[in-house]
């Protein structure tokens, strides 16, 4: 099914170093509309760095990054250049990011957390933004929390609010960086359920996760990263029956 969708995100030969240490070595990756891609791999392999470069929280050192064929960053004379500010602002609207530790705005109510960016950034009328937020809250099972403040919510609820906040801007692609890692085990389920529902609605998603079973059930494709490169890539079945020793060892750790 996903073979037909147009390419939403394309990364070619992405490189990134910190203090002279190459963290992303040569990452190429494209994601089509409606695809769910999980990224797994050991700690320090560069998964977060990849998401941060893709969402432009970090500037990459080499390669290209494009959304819907619009180049956000590309190489010119061996240097990585970013598109002009106005264009980046447009490109920005394509994606959202859900953080491991939510990063909700503590001084805003749940409702305002969700409506503020649409109103302030996208100039959506307040009424409309609130209606949109109410729908999202209902969908994520948080209808009774609209007036609560983040500090009054459980971790699972906070993460669902942060997902609603990202969705309120109607991104075409949503990145998750270990969305359940900061949660108590009994709370991860409610967040994973929400993500599964989004997958059912064909939301395009890239999810960094340590939840192997979840990745297996949900993903169209799994990417295994190690030491800054994509070591293996394939359907869940391919990855879970992969010949590559590294992949087998890594997955084996989670199946004990």
């Amino acid at each position, binding site marked *: 099914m996903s073979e037909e969708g147009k390419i939403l995100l394309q990364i070619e030969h992405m490189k990134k170093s910190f203090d002279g240490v190459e963290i992303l070595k040569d990452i190429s990756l494209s994601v089509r509309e409606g695809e769910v891609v999980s990224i797994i791999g050991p700690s320090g392999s560069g998964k977060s760095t990849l998401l941060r470069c893709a*969402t432009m*929280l970090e500037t990459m050192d080499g390669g290209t990054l494009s959304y819907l064929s619009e180049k956000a960053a590309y190489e010119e004379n061996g240097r990585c250049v970013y598109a002009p500010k106005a264009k980046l*602002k447009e490109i*920005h*609207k394509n*994606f*959202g*990011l859900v*953080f491991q*530790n939510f*990063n*909700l*705005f*503590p*001084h805003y109510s749940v409702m305002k957390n969700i409506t*503020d*960016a649409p109103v*302030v*950034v*996208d100039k959506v009328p307040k009424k409309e933004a609130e209606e949109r937020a109410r729908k999202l809250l209902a969908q994520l099972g948080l209808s009774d929390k609209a007036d609560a*403040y*983040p*500090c009054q919510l459980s971790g699972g609820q906070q993460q669902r609010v942060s997902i609603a*906040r*990202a969705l309120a*801007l109607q991104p075409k692609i949503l990145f998750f960086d270990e969305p359940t890692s900061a949660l108590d085990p009994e709370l991860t389920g409610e967040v994973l359920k929400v993500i599964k529902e989004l997958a059912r609605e064909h939301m395009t998603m890239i999810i960094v996760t340590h939840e192997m079973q979840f990745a297996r059930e949900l993903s169209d494709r799994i990417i295994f990263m190690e030491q800054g490169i994509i070591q293996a890539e394939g359907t869940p079945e391919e990855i879970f029956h992969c010949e590559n020793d590294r992949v087998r060892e890594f997955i084996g750790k989670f199946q004990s």
Partner: protein
Amino acid sequence: MTLSTILLQLMKGMGVTAEIFFLTLLFSLPLGLLVAFGRMSKNGIIRTVSKIYISVLRGTPLMLQLIVVYFAPFYVFHLKVGNYRFPAIIIAFALNYAAYFAEIYRAGIESMPVGQYEAARVLGYSRLQTFVRIILPQVIKRILPPVTNETITLVKDTSLAFVLAQAEMFTMAKQIAAKETSIMPLMIAGVFYYLFNLIVATVMERIEKSLNYYK
């Protein structure tokens, strides 16, 4: 002099004290934010200038600064300015307190978790929007306790205006005390300062409480 005339005179002085207090806050709070930005600027020159500014104004006596600000136009620039006493006091106080507030702002801003900036950035907020809508409100909550401290100190510091013979409460109390050879005016002034600060502390506590709706 009867007690009621003493009280009346001191009340008048109190009015001037309150004026110095409010005008100082009015100017030093925004100026302090500006200096804090300078202190955190990417531009090395601006950063250094701000650092020196803070260091000098915090490192020298406020009384000296009052005198310098008052006499500088004449001694340095040979200017004769008309009734400059009160403006000089406000300028000196504002410059001095801005330095203290700048460091408080800076500590508050730097204590904000980077995740707040990143969340705002991914959501598409501009830098100005991020600061005004996301960062500043949280910083204000964080810095209220140290700002309260400075504000209480300011109430007492207003008495330093006596070096320029400004008729604020302390100057009045001293004059009356000398004339009447009585310590009572000074005691009354003390009570007035105390009450003023009691009000300041209560108001600040109210503001702090009003921001307690989130953690």
